[in-house]
């Protein structure tokens, strides 16, 4: 990590529209730049601004991030074309500690754009697939067309690498090709009927605040050790280095001490979720 506030240039090598609102941007730097799963970077659109974004996995030449057009700077980002230069700072924060997952079943629960960091984690797990037991991915999206990386996940499910279940908030009608969509409703409903071995499972959760409110304690109540239930928090992380104070919660700098925390830590941070 560099604490410098001066970005380094990165090239947008590929831009893939994921759904109507989200795009996957693949970035490449001239010097090696490794972002671990759960870590984040600060992306600069020159002249417009900077925003924090987590890695959605590494690529052959760099890494990818999934960005939703939600504000002024992301709107400017969406105006950029392949080959253009953006600024990059980081990587920042404590990501997922893979040793906490090793030798255990892995339960990944994502809501909405929260799938992006978990995809990064999933990719890291798949690097050494044999070190882990079952990998279960539960993913809730608004509508079927909002399911990001759907083909990729369905392929992994089809060849047995991961167990996959989608839920959607709305769906007019589930058709033939919707095999992995198991429920219309909250992603937590997907937990029902899962044959989990709580004492052998590590969970990672990422999604909007409302997701954390219901899912984390529910996981604990199934018997999973709160030290092995991880969530990644979203705050207004500006500097990434614990200096600017924007993301501080309960005295903890989310950008530097997090953004990945286990449930035990979160329980001692009032207001964190």
């Amino acid at each position, binding site marked *: 990590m560099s*604490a*410098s506030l001066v970005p380094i*240039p990165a090239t947008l090598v590929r831009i893939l529209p994921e759904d109507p609102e989200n795009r996957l941007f693949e970035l490449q730097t001239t010097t090696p730049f490794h972002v671990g799963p759960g870590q984040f970077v600060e992306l*600069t659109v020159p002249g417009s601004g900077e925003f924090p974004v987590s890695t959605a996995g590494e690529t052959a030449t760099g890494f990818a991030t999934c960005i939703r057009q939600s504000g002024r700077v992301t709107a400017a980002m969406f105006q950029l074309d392949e080959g253009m230069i953006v600024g990059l700072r980081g990587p920042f924060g404590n990501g997922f500690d893979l040793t906490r997952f090793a030798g255990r079943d892995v339960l990944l629960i994502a809501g909405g754009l929260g799938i992006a960091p978990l995809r990064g984690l999933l990719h890291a797990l798949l690097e050494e697939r044999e070190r882990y037991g079952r990998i279960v991915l539960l993913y809730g999206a608004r509508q079927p067309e909002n399911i990001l990386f759907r083909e990729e996940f369905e392929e992994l499910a089809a060849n047995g690498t991961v167990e996959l279940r989608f839920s959607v908030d709305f769906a007019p009608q589930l058709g033939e090709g919707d095999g992995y969509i198991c429920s219309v409703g909250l992603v937590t409903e997907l937990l029902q009927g899962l044959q989990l071995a709580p004492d052998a499972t590590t969970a990672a959760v990422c999604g909007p605040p409302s997701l954390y409110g219901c899912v984390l304690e529910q996981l604990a109540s199934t018997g999973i050790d709160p030290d092995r239930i991880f969530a990644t928090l979203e705050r207004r992380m500006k500097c990434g280095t*614990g200096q600017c104070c924007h993301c*501080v919660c309960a005295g903890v700098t989310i950008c530097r001490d997090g953004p990945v925390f286990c449930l035990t830590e979160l329980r001692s941070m009032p207001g964190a979720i």
Partner: protein
Amino acid sequence: MDGFVVKADFLPRLLQQLQENYQVVGPVRGEDDVCRLQPLDEWSEHQEFSLPRISVKKYLFPPNELLYTTKNGTFEPPPPPEQMAVVGVPSCDLYAVDFLDRVFADDPLYQRRRSNLLLVGITCHPSEDCFCPPRDTPPPFDLFLDEERVFSGTPRGDELLQQLGDRLIGEVEIDHDWTCEAQGPPLPENLERRWAANETKSFWEEIGGRCLGCGACSAVCPTCHCFDMQDRIDAAGNAVRHRIWDNCFFPNFALVAGGHDFHPTRGARFRFRCEHKLLGFGVFRGESSCVGCGRCRAACPVQIDILEALDHLREGAIP
């Protein structure tokens, strides 16, 4: 560390010496009776070492600092700052520099400024607003003037004393009491537990109900270091970014994408500031960064006082 008794004209000579290599600034009382740090041309007999409105922080962590300019697809940091000497820094502000040094330990731009800054400390003359915490270790300084004595704290300070050897009379023991005479109440014990127990809203919301949210307290604080970054296009067509002082009293400070505000009321914002000052954030948890200069108390248009918060915590029950 060396200590010497100095001759009467030591200060003016020191200033002369500094002016050869540094831009020299010091506290100057303006026509409006406000004391500010500003460039010093000459030593005035009436030089007054009162607390400037804003501490030496403004040179280390400027309110508006260029971070980079884009040039042909790269991000160019600004040229290095000039060598600067600040004369007449009271010890509370020196302790504040020590805190900032650690906050920005990994920040190359800050460190570049810091290494180009020479600090000449001075025994302070406390105002009625001061409430310094007890101190047993010296703050950082290159030179420190204690009435008719001078101490050196760095090789740079040693070198200056060598150059001014003819203004020194004799070597002395350094027996300075770093605790200011305007000593404030000590922090209550078990502060973290008291803090957790005092999450009750009523006290903070009562204060928040008076607070204007103007941010004056943070703006004048020598250790407040929240910042924001602003991007723009300069007249030449380059993208530039500035680091600017931010303020935890501003409504959008803890606003996240999607519109959730983690500090939705002025009471919550005041509590956040007190938490930062008294309990510290992140790696500084457990360390108070309040140096007791009293600027925030003096600057508040509605007389909100951090000591009031401290009293509240002290008097509150611990579970």
